[in-house]
């Protein structure tokens, strides 16, 4: 392939820049425009997939500095990958955005892009499960000690911006123990043993949705799989990749690769859409790492979302009934990033009594997008409102497969003042299995 046309010094001067093969695949057809939530909302072409790819290319050609005109569109992208689903040329917009963010992160250590606090959290908290656990304990203490009541009564929350206030209000009660503390290193299969899998416990899932992690292991065991939960594992690094902190993400990826590959398992199972796609992209993240590239690709090939895994391996339809009407929201990192649409529905449809009512545009981003709802509330807010408006009348629960979406939709439920539940697909399946134990 010919060298890119020389127009000036590329704005991308750090390792791991946006890949020229990826941006030159874009033929500027514009078919992706209307699929993009930020373009729909703002009507600006620099805030569209085509525009973003074009700007990244212009920066690589030295026509655009690593500055506001590039940084803002690149960071305002939800990384939802809706554009990738419709792009006829297979342009990897998400990967390009992440690579461009990497350049911004590397170029501006202290200001711009992610701020100092975010940087601190990314580098000093998430890579360390112990520190996360400590923060979780702190949060739980806040929720339970009476401090929260005090803070609320004193009206101190008014000091927070509205979107953070809402988040505080809906944050689920933090469980006493993280899932890593609850799960045994090896959970044996029930009945005939069909295989052995490893479970990624994640970070948010581990502390906020510990019950869902435990349910995941229980459902796997119920279907004949030994479940190991390697203790050396760490957060998947998706948040880091999204923020542009590729170096920290790579360190965490290498660690997970070492830890999981040393287990003798048939698959690495994940229950968070965002983590799943990050793990499946380790091969891509470490493509320039001669020591790890091949291992990373092997690792990525072993990764399965829980719904994908059960649909592939086959699962026992639960006999317990759950009489409820629910709707399903496709997490972007399920449908657009991993092509997972059919599998979660298959699981849900096999549950006796459960009625799945589809919502229109179920694949449109809810605005969560990692921590986007915290960094860009002005766009995340309207997206959430649109999502809530699409929830069909009369459903009792909104089911999805990603912790970020769950939190965001909890805010939505709070906003609309209904009593709907927000559940993970596995929670529902697990409940159906448990109902069968109770009825027999």
């Amino acid at each position, binding site marked *: 392939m010919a060298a890119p046309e020389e127009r000036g010094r590329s704005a991308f001067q750090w390792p791991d820049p946006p890949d020229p093969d990826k941006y030159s*695949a874009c*033929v500027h057809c*514009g*078919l992706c425009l209307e699929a993009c939530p930020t373009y729909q909302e703002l009507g*600006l072409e620099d805030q569209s997939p085509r525009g973003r790819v074009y700007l990244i290319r212009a920066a690589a050609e030295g026509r655009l500095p690593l500055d506001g005109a590039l940084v803002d569109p690149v960071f305002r992208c939800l990384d939802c990958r809706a554009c990738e689903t*419709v792009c*006829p040329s297979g342009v990897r917009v998400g990967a390009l955005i992440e690579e461009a963010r990497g350049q911004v992160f590397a170029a501006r250590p202290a200001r711009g892009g992610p701020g100092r606090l975010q940087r601190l959290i990314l580098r000093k908290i998430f890579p360390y499960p112990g520190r996360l656990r400590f923060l979780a304990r702190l949060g739980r203490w806040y929720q339970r000690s009476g401090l929260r009541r005090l803070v609320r009564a004193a009206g101190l929350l008014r000091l927070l911006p509205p979107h953070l206030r809402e988040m505080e209000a809906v944050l689920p009660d933090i469980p006493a123990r993280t899932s890593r503390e609850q799960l045994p290193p090896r959970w044996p299969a029930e009945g005939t043993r069909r295989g052995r899998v490893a479970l990624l416990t994640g970070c948010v899932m581990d502390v906020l949705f510990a019950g869902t992690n435990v349910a995941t292991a229980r459902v796997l065991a119920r279907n004949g799989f030994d479940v190991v939960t390697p203790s050396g594992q760490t957060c998947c690094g998706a948040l880091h990749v999204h923020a542009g902190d590729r170096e920290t993400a790579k360190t965490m990826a290498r660690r997970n690769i070492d830890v999981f590959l040393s287990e003798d398992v048939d698959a690495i199972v994940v229950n968070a859409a965002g983590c799943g796609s990050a793990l499946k992209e380790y091969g891509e993240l470490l493509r320039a790492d001669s020591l790890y590239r091949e291992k990373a690709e092997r690792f990525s090939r072993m990764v399965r979302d829980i719904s994908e895994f059960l649909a592939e391996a086959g699962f026992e339809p639960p006999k317990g009934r759950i009489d409820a009407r629910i709707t399903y929201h496709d997490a972007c990192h399920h449908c657009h990033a991993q092509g997972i649409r059919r599998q979660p529905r298959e699981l849900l449809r096999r549950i006796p009594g459960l009625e799945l009512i589809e919502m229109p545009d179920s694949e449109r981003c809810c605005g969560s997008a990692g921590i986007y709802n915290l960094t860009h509330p002005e766009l995340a807010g309207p997206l959430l409102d649109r999502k809530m408006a699409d929830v069909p009348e009369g459903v009792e629960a909104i089911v999805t497969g990603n912790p970020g979406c769950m939190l965001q939709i909890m805010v939505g439920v709070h906003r609309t003042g209904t009593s709907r539940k927000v559940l993970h697909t596995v929670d529902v399946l697990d409940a159906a299995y448990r109902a069968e134990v109770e009825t027999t």
Partner: protein
Amino acid sequence: MRRDASHRKMIEDLERILGPGRVLSDPLRLLAYECDGYTVQKGRPSAVVFPGSTEEVAAVVRYLHRHRIPFVPRGAGTGLSGGATALNGEVVISLVRMNRILHIDYENRYAIVEPGVVNRKLSERTASRGYYYAPDPSSQQACTIGGNVGENAGGPHCLKYGVTTHHVLALEWVLPDGEVALVGGPNGDDIGYDLRGLVIGSEGTLGIVTRIWVRLLKKPAGVRTVLALFDTVEDASRAVSEVISRGIVPGALEMMDRLAIRAVEAGAYPVGYPEDIEAVLLLELDGPEEGLEEQAREAVDVCRRRRVRDVRVASGEAERALWWNNRKTAFGAMGNLSPDYLVQDGVIPRSALPEVLARIAEISRDSGLRIANVFHAGDGNLHPLILFDSRNPGETERAVETGSRVLQVCADVGGSITGEHGVGLEKINEMAKIFSPRDLDYQMKIREVWNPEELCNPGKIFPRPARCIDRQPPLGRPASVPV
């Protein structure tokens, strides 16, 4: 681009007219507006403005007219001939924020829309009542109805149902001096001159369309979609001619050649076509249920007699949608084969297809550039897609020249140089292939009636001999055509 005091003043004035957040003027952010779907020629606008109503469009246009500042209307920028590109730093008037469906009258079967409404959105909105908007350009998921009016866009189903002009009843139109006019009527025709017809397809050179009355059609009761795979293009073309000569009127009749098939199969909607197939024919019959089945059988028979390798009828909506999605993403899918493409928009007599394709293959060999072909077979609208890599020095120019030779072939067999993508910047110099200097002169006189100073979308459609010296000539082309 001038970034001097007068430019600053213009930005301030425009901001005053439209209010905050409606004028984009940071030159770096404007990079994203450098071109449309035609990437060979580029120009950065001096500003992009986002009016929200007819009054705002008129106010902006009045201001620009008063100050003799040229401007370009732009919809989604999916155009394929550079019509929405601000080649010389004009002000771009973006209509995408005027995207409301204002009124739907099911009883009288029409809707009133703003120009920024995305084509497919209108069909989606009316689907639950059993209606749709018929013109279906392959870009319908993104392009705007205003842009469709600008280009008089067609689409696969226009064979039976007609192009944009057959579906637009009336228009509200801001003239290049800021006056607002209403043309057309409930039946689409005017008493006196059909100005509505004149505006449609004028590529934004006669003013800006701000409201559109469009026909809504009842969805056909039944649909049968036939897919046929052929080992030679000749057999496929003969099948097309025979279907039509038997009096069957398909809703759509589309063909792709081998290279185009390769691209779509690598795209977002692979069907699983065999790799060695030379032509895929997609034929759709629609209308009342009775009779459809026989017509489908007849079409299948015709294909069988023309040595089809495989032919079948879609098993249901899902399969039909897959076949169409595969076909409709053909242009965009070229990115799977090549970093750049240039699409041509020739019209040829259907019967000439085998000959034309043979000559295109020759041109391709000669130029060293691959050419894929997508064909609206029913109405003879051929889209050769010339694949190139703009990063290779000289290759863009070679692609442009190759395109020109391809269009010459179309003109030679008695066809035309554009079916639906418009002339824009791209085909200015090809106009001389089908029009005499006098014809062109007459057309320019019509433009002068409304746009005498060429402030509205300057430098589009017609060659500009008088002023070509102070303009960049289009890449790799003669600077002008003598008029």
